[in-house]
């Protein structure tokens, strides 16, 4: 059976992708941020994933306002990286696993999540930056298959934190009922607090971010009490990307322990953060 061995949450700020392309990891501005990734990358390497489930949000590359799915799941053999209009280098395509995707789609719809399925899907920096961050030696040959799950964080109404938690639970059940022996790591991307627009642009809320980093490990269902407006207020208009983290955490059905976290202000207009969680399946514990 497929098994979710853990999860990684990470910011996906475009400037990170540019810094990687320009090899600025050791610049004074970037060093405290990239240093926080060494342990995460080392954990991912030893986790030996076959598949990465990428829970992220599109920022206007694949989806426009003409058709805006609340939840969309990739079902393609490949996912394209494309020009986003402001200079982030285009990556080589990311391999998909269409069999696994259709299994997840079947399972989610049976579980009353009426998602949109996408056989043709371009993935933007919400997906590509975490891949380039976490697989620094890939050199265009990605060592895993991928399964994109996109959550609408662009056009309100957005799904509530409670709904995203439940989506994560349903994705976890879907993956762990897949009959092939696959090792799966789930990514949740974006955040933490930031706001790009309005006269409150530049808003960052360290206190709330630190609360989120701690609570998502120990008491993730606490977020289900928050509304989307609460998230906008506390995390900023674009900090609502924390919904991706909540869904990611929901996929972990076993006993969860924190391996590593890092938090650094600012990266571009944003509080940069990463978190690595290990998931020990209940079944395994009983067998041992």
């Amino acid at each position, binding site marked *: 059976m497929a098994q979710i061995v853990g999860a990684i949450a990470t910011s996906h700020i475009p400037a990170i992708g540019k810094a990687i392309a320009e090899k600025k990891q050791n610049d004074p501005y970037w060093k405290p941020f990239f240093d926080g990734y060494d342990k995460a990358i080392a954990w991912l390497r030893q986790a030996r994933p076959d598949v990465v489930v990428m829970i992220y949000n599109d920022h*206007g590359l694949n989806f426009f306002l003409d058709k805006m799915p609340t939840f969309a799941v990739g079902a393609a053999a490949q996912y394209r990286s494309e020009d986003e*209009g402001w*200079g982030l280098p285009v990556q080589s395509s990311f391999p998909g696993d269409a069999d696994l995707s259709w299994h997840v789609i079947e399972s989610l719809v049976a579980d009353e999540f009426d998602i949109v399925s996408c056989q043709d899907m371009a993935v933007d920096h919400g997906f590509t930056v975490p891949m380039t961050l976490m697989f620094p030696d890939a050199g265009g040959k990605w060592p895993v298959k991928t399964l994109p799950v996109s959550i609408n964080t662009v056009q309100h109404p957005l799904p509530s934190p409670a709904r995203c938690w439940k989506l994560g639970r349903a994705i976890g059940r879907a993956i762990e009922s897949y009959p092939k022996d696959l090792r799966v790591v789930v990514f949740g991307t974006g955040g933490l607090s930031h706001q790009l627009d309005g006269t*409150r642009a530049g808003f960052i809320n360290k206190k709330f971010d630190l609360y989120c980093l701690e609570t998502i490990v120990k008491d993730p269902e606490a977020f289900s009490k928050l509304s989307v*407006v609460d998230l*906008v207020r506390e995390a900023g*208009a674009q900090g609502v990307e924390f919904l991706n983290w909540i869904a990611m955490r929901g996929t972990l059905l076993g006993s969860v322990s924190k391996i590593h976290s890092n938090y650094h202000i600012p990266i571009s207009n944003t509080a940069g953060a990463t978190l690595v969680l290990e998931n020990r399946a209940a079944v395994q514990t009983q067998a041992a």
Partner: protein
Amino acid sequence: MQHHDIPGTVVFDGTQAQKGYALNAMCYSFNAAANRDAFTRDEDAYCAKFGLNEEQRAAIRERNVLKLLAAGGNVYYLAKFAGILKLNVQDIGAQQTGMTVDAFKDMLAAAGRQ
């Protein structure tokens, strides 16, 4: 949209999405280099092609982010317009808050020392 009292924040909801459709459609087209070039070659013709209203056309002409937001623009699509102008999110943050870019960056850094 649920009522909110968050200062300095426009929540991009159905009202904004309807109002800003043409403006956002134009900015979405800027994902493609050929469209960015076409805009740069003949800005009037390109805006006319997408049917921008007067308010949107004026906000584009003035490169004014707060006015673009008021005209229904969404920041993720507007970022692609900012890309043509070679402006990053600190530049547009400074413009919206009426700060210099350096002062805006100092404010971001100060949030880390709280």
